[in-house]
């Protein structure tokens, strides 16, 4: 093993273990926590055994292991970006509804109408 592997394999295994611990302590949802643990675990395996990415790539007809990892990373990144976008849209909708309800509750009319009275 080289220095990179000595440093990052333990770090990635630790990250995987911490993710599992958060699931057990209820600090994160089971599906989300297990996905993170699996992701860190796969990363640790790939760093520990670089030939693993080549073998996995060959299963899909991709010759170079690094290409396989790149393709999977791009797809995973796109999924995460779209998930975050969806979450931000839901938050925006919730915020909008709260602001709207408050605004309508406090509406008032000015000038020569029925006075500056609340709606």
């Amino acid at each position, binding site marked *: 093993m080289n220095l990179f592997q000595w440093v990052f394999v333990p770090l990635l295994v630790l990250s995987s273990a911490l993710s599992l611990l958060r699931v057990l302590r209820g600090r994160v949802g089971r599906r989300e926590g297990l996905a993170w643990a699996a992701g860190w675990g796969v990363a640790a395996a790939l760093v520990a055994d670089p030939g693993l990415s080549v073998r996995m790539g060959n299963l899909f007809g991709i010759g170079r292991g690094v290409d396989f990892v790149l393709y999977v990373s791009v797809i995973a990144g796109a999924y995460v970006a779209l998930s975050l976008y969806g979450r931000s849209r839901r938050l925006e909708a919730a915020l*909008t509804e709260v602001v709207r309800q408050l605004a309508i509750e406090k509406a008032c009319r000015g000038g020569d109408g029925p006075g500056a009275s609340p709606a």
Partner: protein
Amino acid sequence: MARTEGTDGRPAAAGGASLAARSWVVVPSFNEAARLGAVLDGLVALWPNVVVVDDGSADPTPEVVRGRPVWLVRHAVNLGQGAALQTGLRFALERGAAFLVTFDADGQHDPADVAPLLAPLAEGRADFALGSRFLGEAPGIPWARRLLLRCAVLFTRVVHGPKLTDSHNGLRAMTRRGAEALRIDMNRMEHASQLLEQIHRSGLAWVEVPVTVRYTRDSLAKGQRTSSALKMAARLLLEKVLR
């Protein structure tokens, strides 16, 4: 059907009932205090039910509105024109509006165009009347803005469907049924395209009506840039993919 005036001098619908009494004009506004006063003075002369939705303005918009017989609904934070529009429509519907008009706060629109917009709705010919500067007039429009708007018309036809001559005009009218069919949840400028898509999908009848849109240096300075239009198009396409 010829438009007549009611006993109050305001536009009347068929049968003599006051169209004005049953209509609400929604004016979304963001930092338009300098021009809003003149806009409201023009509207309240003919239309008694006007609501300004102040979208978190940092200028004296509330003071301008409070000095006039106009309703004021204030967003605590800036959400976007789409959100302000939906807030105004909901407010008017809750107060029994039979007809609703959306009107920009920047002085580009002419209050005299409101009655012609409502005419086809009052006659029962349509649920939506969409203003078109290209059927009417657009004095002072720069050629670049005209080109951008034409591209927007083409984009709308390809992506959303309706064949319009002006797809981004804030002056529009709708019946209560039409307004209830809308659910604008795109807060920023993309709402205009979303609104057209929802109109198209609702199956309700719509017409285009010639209107005047005036361009001034101030309104052009605050208007949408080409880069914003490209971002808007990208976001609309993304929403279409995700939904």
